[in-house]
Structure formats: C-alpha cells, structure tokens
C-alpha cells in the first residue's frame, strides 16, 4: 500500500516536473566557435545602429532560413555577438526551415497563430503580400529617426520594393515606407566543369567572357561540344523554378511583367523568343538535363558541363573532385545576360511589442561587418553598396572567378531585381506560369500555343 502511494506520488511529481521543465526557460548553450573569417577580410562596420536602446531589457526573437549547419552556426554566433553589442536587448536566434517544414509555410502558420518572431527574413517576392496584409511593420518613422540611414546604402533594386508605398506608389527615401532591409543579394552564374569542357575541346567560357564573346551562340557551341562526349553527359543544367527560365526571357528583352509590373508580358515577342531559345536547348539540340530533373547531382557527379545556379550553391560545389569555376551567364540578343538580382529582407513582425529594438536589430544584422561574416561562408553577396564589402567578397574563394557574380549584379549587366507584385499576387502568377513554361520546355506545349493563352490566365493574378 505504502509502495503504491509512493509510486503514485513519484508519478505525480514527474508529471509536475514535466510541466515545470516546459515552463523553465531553455538553457541555450552558446554556439560552438566557428572558424571566424579573417578580420582583415571583413569590411568594417560602416555605421552602427543609432537607435537608442531602451532602459529595460527586452527579449527579441529573430529568424533566418539557413541552408546548412555551418550557416546556423554563423548566425548563432552573430546573434551572441549582437546580444552583447545591443544594450538592453536579449536575442534568441531561431534557424527556420527543414526538410519537412517549409520555411515560409511555417512562418505563415506562426504569424496566423501570433507566435512568429519579432524579426524574420522573407524572400523578396513575399514582401508585397506580407506588407499589404499588414503582417510586417512599416518602419519608416523609425528609419527617419535613425541617424545615417538612407536607402542608398543598399542595392537599388531591393530598396525600390522595400521602400515602396502602395498607397502613393512612391519609392525611395521619404516615400513613407520602409518594410525592412535586405539581408544579402545574389545572382546566377554558370558553374563550369572545366575538365569536361577541356575534354570536349570547347573554348573556355571564362576566356570568351573576358573577350566579350560569351553570348548565346558561344554558349550553345560549348553545350553541344560537351554533350557530344557521351549520352550521359549534358552540356547544361538548370533547376525547375522561375529563376532559371526567367533569365532567358529577360536576356532577349522580354520578361514576366510589363514595365509597370501591372500585367503579364509572357506573351510579348521578346519573351517568346527567349523561351523558344531555351526550349531549343531541351528539345531541338538536346544539350540540357531534362527540364524538371534536378541537375545538381549530375553536376556533382561530373556529368554536366555548365550548371546554372546562384551563389548559394557554392558551398555544395566546393566538395566536388574535378576542376571547376564559374562564369557569368551568356549575353542574349538584348546584349545583357538578363540576370536576376535575388534578395531577401529582414522585416519586423507587425505585432512585435518592441518595434524600436527590432529596428535596431534589423540594422545591426545588415551592417557591412555582419554581412562580411556571412559572406565568408561563400553563400551570398553583401547587400550593402560598399566597395569594402565587395572587395572582401572576392577573397572568399573558390571559385577563383568570384568576379562573375559581381558582374551579374553590376549596373552594366542591367539585372532585374527579384520583386514582389504590388499590383497582384505573385504566388498566383507563379502558380499559373510555372507549369505552363514546364509544358513548353518538356515539349508538350508549343511556344505558339503558350503565347496564345498564357496571359489570359496569368492576368487573373493581377488586381482586376
């Protein structure tokens, strides 16, 4: 009887401990010391956050979407350092996203439940949706009160959208809108398997680019030469999403939207010409990894000569056992490669209880110094327009030809900034566009049929 009572008491105590263990704050361990980037390589902070810290300590949670454990470690370390640097603010870093939990889906669910972090990262295409639904804070007043803040410190493309005021259609400093600050930028390049290209006897794309001869024709020649090496060797490979196919449309002078981004332009003559050239790579010349197949395993296995991807693919490519480098995308009929300026931004939860502190954190996360540390991983390019930051980025090798990425976002290359649709719904547009383009590139739809019907459907994604 006594023993039964004892067991019951113990059981109850364990249940009570179970509850209390959940209530007690987790004792988060400091992240392991990661290999810090050389101090000399990282650019100095160009400006310190100027917002005054409040007198009382406030807890802030922030989140990004890291791609791997190395990035998680670096962001954790940055969080620890900023925690010490920002007076009166205690930071908790939450790496978001996993194989089973899509970053954005999880974030949306948490916003709906009211448990989203104070500061979080979102991709550029989501900014309009989040802003117009009132999910993220317009920090214009905080930015105006911040000494030294100007949108000109960052790349123009992202800042156009991050300072876009949907009520007045104004953008830039004084527009009355600041939705966040860009975490980093990126762009496409072609990852080259130099061994395959040499074996095929094709011209080195890097030399062609240096001589100004790197255009679609030269690209096709290299692709065909390497494809001829064997039935399992491909000249070119790209993943199946809007980024890779968009560049071909951009490079021929077309694009997804009209100039004012208020209607579909997929059926313009230029867009269709770009799409047709890309289709020919898959269907006529058969030089590309079939559209919809993941080309990365093939590239890493040494069976793809040119793999189109962003800077974020670099850490993974660094593990391959063949000679590789990168080159900018070939110039299209329009004279430019039609590349994208990819970006994502740190934004503030509209329901945060500490907007001032959250804004201070957003600024601290986007200083040149912080961006330099993250760039050292090789996954992205600093979003600040700073020669120091770019010089530091060039030292993070391999690839040897890091300049190819910077060429992609240089003003001469006229990159198109990844951007949200302020006059419509990007997810809706993408939902219609993606499968239709896939139909063309896999040969089940002709370019002509695509052009005839696509904008009838896609224009429904814009506000009627």
């Amino acid at each position, binding site marked *: 009887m006594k023993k039964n009572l004892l067991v019951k008491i113990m059981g109850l105590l364990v249940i009570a401990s179970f509850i209390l*263990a*959940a209530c*007690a704050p987790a004792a988060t361990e400091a992240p392991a010391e990661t290999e810090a980037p050389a101090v000399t390589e990282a650019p100095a902070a160009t400006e310190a956050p100027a917002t005054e810290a409040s007198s009382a300590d406030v807890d802030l949670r922030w989140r990004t979407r890291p791609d791997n454990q190395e990035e998680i470690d670096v962001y954790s370390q940055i969080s620890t350092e900023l925690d010490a640097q920002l007076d009166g603010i205690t930071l908790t870093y939450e790496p978001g996203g996993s194989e089973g939990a899509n970053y954005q889906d999880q974030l949306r*669910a948490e916003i709906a439940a009211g448990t989203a972090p104070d500061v979080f990262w979102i991709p550029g295409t989501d900014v309009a949706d989040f802003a117009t639904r009132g999910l993220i804070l317009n920090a214009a007043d905080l930015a105006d009160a911040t000494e030294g803040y100007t949108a000109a410190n960052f790349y123009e493309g992202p800042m156009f959208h991050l300072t876009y005021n949907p009520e007045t259609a104004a953008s830039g400093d004084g527009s009355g809108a600041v939705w966040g600050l860009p975490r980093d930028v990126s762009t496409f390049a072609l990852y080259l398997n130099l061994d395959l290209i040499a074996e095929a006897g094709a011209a080195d794309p890097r030399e062609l680019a240096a001589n100004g001869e790197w255009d679609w024709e030269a690209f096709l020649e290299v692709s065909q030469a390497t494809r001829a090496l064997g039935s399992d060797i491909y000249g070119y490979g790209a993943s199946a999403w809007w980024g890779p196919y968009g560049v071909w449309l951009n490079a021929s002078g077309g694009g997804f939207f009209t100039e004012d981004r208020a209607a579909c332009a997929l059926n313009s003559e230029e867009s269709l010409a770009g799409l047709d050239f890309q289709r020919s790579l898959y269907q006529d010349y058969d030089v590309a990894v079939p559209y919809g197949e993941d080309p990365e395993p093939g590239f890493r296995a040494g069976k793809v000569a040119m793999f189109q991807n962003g800077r974020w693919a670099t850490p993974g490519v660094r593990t391959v056992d063949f000679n590789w480098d990168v080159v900018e995308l070939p110039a299209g009929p329009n004279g430019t490669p039609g590349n994208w300026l990819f970006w994502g931004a740190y934004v503030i939860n509209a329901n945060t209880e500490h907007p001032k502190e959250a804004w201070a954190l957003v600024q601290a996360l986007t200083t040149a110094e912080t961006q330099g540390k993250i760039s050292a991983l090789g996954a992205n390019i600093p979003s600040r327009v700073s020669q120091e930051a770019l010089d530091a980025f060039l030292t993070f090798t391999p690839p040897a030809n890091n300049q190819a990425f910077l060429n992609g976002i240089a003003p001469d290359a006229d990159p198109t900034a990844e951007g949200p649709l302020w006059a419509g719904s990007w*997810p809706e547009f993408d939902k219609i566009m993606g499968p239709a383009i896939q139909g063309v590139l896999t040969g*089940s739809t002709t370019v002509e049929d695509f052009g005839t019907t696509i904008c009838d459907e896609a224009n429904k994604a814009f506000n009627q």
Partner: protein
Amino acid sequence: MTAQSRIEAQMNLMLRIHVVWRGLVALLAAISIGVIWQRMVETPVWQKILFSFVCVLVMIFSGYGAYQISKRNHAGRMVSLTLDYLGFVVCFVFALNVGEFFIGIDALGENFGKGIPYLGITVLGYFLGMLEEYFPTKNKGAENSLKTVSKWVMLGGFVLFLWQVNALNGIIYFLGKLAQPSGSIAIGGLVIFGLSLWSMRQPNTAQALNVKTGHEQIINGWLFLSPNLLGFLIFFAGPLLLSFYFSFTDSDAIRTPNWVGFENYAKILNIKFVTLDSPDQLARDVVDIKVYDEVGRFTFGNTGILFAAADKFFWLALRNTLTFVLFAVPLSVIPALVLSNILNSKLPGMKFYRAVYFMPSIAAVVGISLVWQWLYNATIGYINYFITLGIEFWNNLFNVAVVDPKIQWVSDEKTALLAIIIIAAWQTMGFNTVLFLAGLQNIPGELYEAATVDGAGAWNKFWGITLPMLAPTTFYVVSTTTIQAMQVFEQVFILMNPAEGPNNSTITLVLYLYRSGFQNFQQGYASAIAWVLFIVIFGLTLIQFQRQRRSSIYES
C-alpha cells in the same frame, strides 16, 4: 440535536451552497453573454457566437442543476459534476497557458531530456527497496538499512532530476506568471471548481441526492471516457466545424473573416461545357476568359467540346487524384492479396519476408520519397541505369537495336503521376499484406480440407473459399486504401519539383488545398476544397458500402 440531525443539517447547508454556486455560475454565464456582445468589439462574430452558445449551454444546465439539487434529485449531481469537471479542466488549461507551458515545448525537450538519466537513479533506488521482497533475509537490520539506502537513493536521484530539469527556475517562472491577474483567476477557478467537485463526490452528498449504484457507474464511465472525448471534441470535431464555417468566409487565417456565403463553393463548381466550331478553337472565343480557364477539350472529327472552369486547378487536381486512386488502389491491393497467400504458407523464413514487406509501411514518407527521387533521376538514377543495362544486354544478345527510352520519370507529364503511383503502391502493399494475412489466418482449415476431399484444386479453393471468406477484410482494405489514396500529398510534395509537376500533372486535391490555405493565405477557400474532398471521399466510401451489402458472395 442528535449526531444524525447535525449531519443532515450540515448536508442541507452544503446542498444550499451548491444551489447558490450553480445559480451563480448560471448568472455569470448570462452576464458573460452581455459582455461578449457589448465589450468584445474586435472579436470576430463567429467567436462571439461560439462563446455565446457555450455560455447559454452553461446557463441552462447550471440553472437546471440548481433546480434539481434543490429537489434532491440525482440529476442535479450529474449536471453539477459535469459542469464543475469541465470548469476545472478549462481552468487547468488556462493556468498552463498563463504559465506559458504550451509555448515551452523547446524548453521541455531540452530540460526534460537532461533529467532522464537521473530519473534512472530514482528507479534504481526503487528496485533496491524491492530487493527484500525477492531475496528475503532474516537480518532485520540489513533489511532496514537497505530500505533506508533505497529511500535516500530515490530521494537523491529525484532531487538531481529536479535540478537537471530546471524545476526550480520552472517553479519561479510559473509562479511569477500565475501572480498575474489572469493567473490568479485561473487558480481561483481551479480551487472553487475543485472544491465543488470534491464535495459532490462525497458519499454523503450522493446519498442525500438519492444516487443509485447505476448512476455512479454512469458517471464513472463518462469520467474514464472524458480524456478521449474532450480530445476528440477539441482537436477533431471543433476544427472540423470551424473549417466548415471558414468555408463560407474569405478567411486568410490572419484578418477577421468576412461571410461570403456559397462563393467559395460556387467558384469551385463553376464549370462550363461548350461545343467548339473546330478542334483548335481558342477558349477565349467561346467562354468569358476573365472568369473561366480551359481545363481540357474532347475533340472528335471537326468539332469538339471545351471543358472550362472558374478554378481549373481544382478540376485538374480532382482528375489527377481520381486517376491516382484508380491505379494506386488496385496496385496496392491485388499484389498484397497474392503476396499474403504466399506468405501464409508454412515455408521456412516466411516471418522474415513478412517483416521485409511490412517495412516500407513503417518507414518515414519523407525519407522514402527522397530515396525514390534519387532512383527516378533521369540522368544518374538507378532505375534508368538498370533499364539501360538491360537494353544493352538484350541488343547484344539478339543483335537488335532497341532504343533506350531514357524515361524522365518525374519530369515528363506522361510518367510523373505513374512515378507517384508506384511509390504509393509499394509503400501501402506491405500493410495491406498484413491485413490480408490476418484475414487468411481466420479462415477455418476445415473448409480447405473439405474442399480437398471434394477434389477442388488450388485455384478453385482460392476462388471458392479464400476470396469469399476474405470479403470483410477485402472491403476494409479497399475502403481504407481508397480513402488514403484520395488524400495523397506527402509523396507528391517531396518528390516533385515543383510539386504540381509538369503541366500540373501531379497536382492533387490535398496538395492544392495546402497550397491555397498555407501558401496563398486562402484559408476559407482551402476549407471549401477540404469539404468538397470530404464529400467525394464520403460518396466513394458509401458506394463501396452499398456494393459490399449487395455482394452475394459476402452475404452467402
């Protein structure tokens, strides 16, 4: 005053207090209704209606309970216990919420995990104390020492455990939160409802209210059922009804939803069939392209019929889902039936094979899908590699020139859905095999013996005995596999990139509702899709039930 009359007086007082308490609860519920509609201006209407409904129920039942208690009727006790129990549970959950228990899951994982080894010490201490029961000794001194050591080991282990799970911090944090006004209300509610429950459960109270043994058994039955019942109501029936309500709104899960009536359903079901003048006539020439999109066209000769819909993705998803069901169900049921007959034999090693075939069913879908993604890769995947080897072997052997098809399993719209069907069938087959095996083992052996005596062959036995006797199992297997297939999602979501597949060839209903609800902020519309899916599944299951009832084989 005798002791008996004193007890009766006390009981009368107690029952009067209960009557007052029930009346007070009813009054509070009535006041709450006024507060909900007067003060909670920003609360969505559906929440106001829901809260009001609950308050009305509490008001009615509490008032009824007060009346019955005053009449010394056992029904008053039943009502009182039910309401107080629910009130106690609500206050307990509210207290946990105030103490931030529900958002402390990370802390729970981290803190509790650290304490588990020390819990082992406590268990060790407990077993030390048990030793004397298994190894009795005449030395009382040694026995007492062992008990003392056992107690101290248990205590020490438990203190270490509490230390490791950060219980002290937890208590301080929890109490700090409970010190807030909302926390005090929760604790106050816990105490009052708890006392009322305790008082009502007392035998004297039961006796005073003329409770019979049968009444007590009913209460105990409901009490045991309550955790499951409450879980069902809160986590299943509640969201189900809520999603039904949302399906009539424009909810985006964030802002207050607006009532839109049947708009969502109308959009889903808004379809048009139009005769075409020529097979290649454009949709925009025959339908209002601002409303409709072409889903497909049926052409014959120089004419055809265009199928257009306001939401073409729903109809594409329905088409793909039904195609998936049409192939995946037979492919995961018929081979399972054959396999179960083979595995039902008494050959050596059959248990091993049973386990092998069952393994895909218990493996994580995410892992399986990622492995298949590699296998299906058109350029470096093993499936195409072996097909190429096979064709080369064939060509060399017979000196022919069969062309390697180089199948693009997931990137060709003709094969993408097939790729998903293969995975689903492979994964479900093992589980169905086990179900069929269980059914086979329930068939009396005498039937087969009698059939053998009558000269029946293996095929006749299978057709005449096995299949009819397996009819209930087959019905269950087909029904559950169909329902499961109608809800296909994970394999598509992980395997395909993008998940919709080439030309929307793998978009399924659940995938589409997920996209709408969680990626496009269209919770209202997604709820409507979910209810249409429910109706489709319900319809299919109903047909299966009716067919089973009419089945002469089963009846016989």
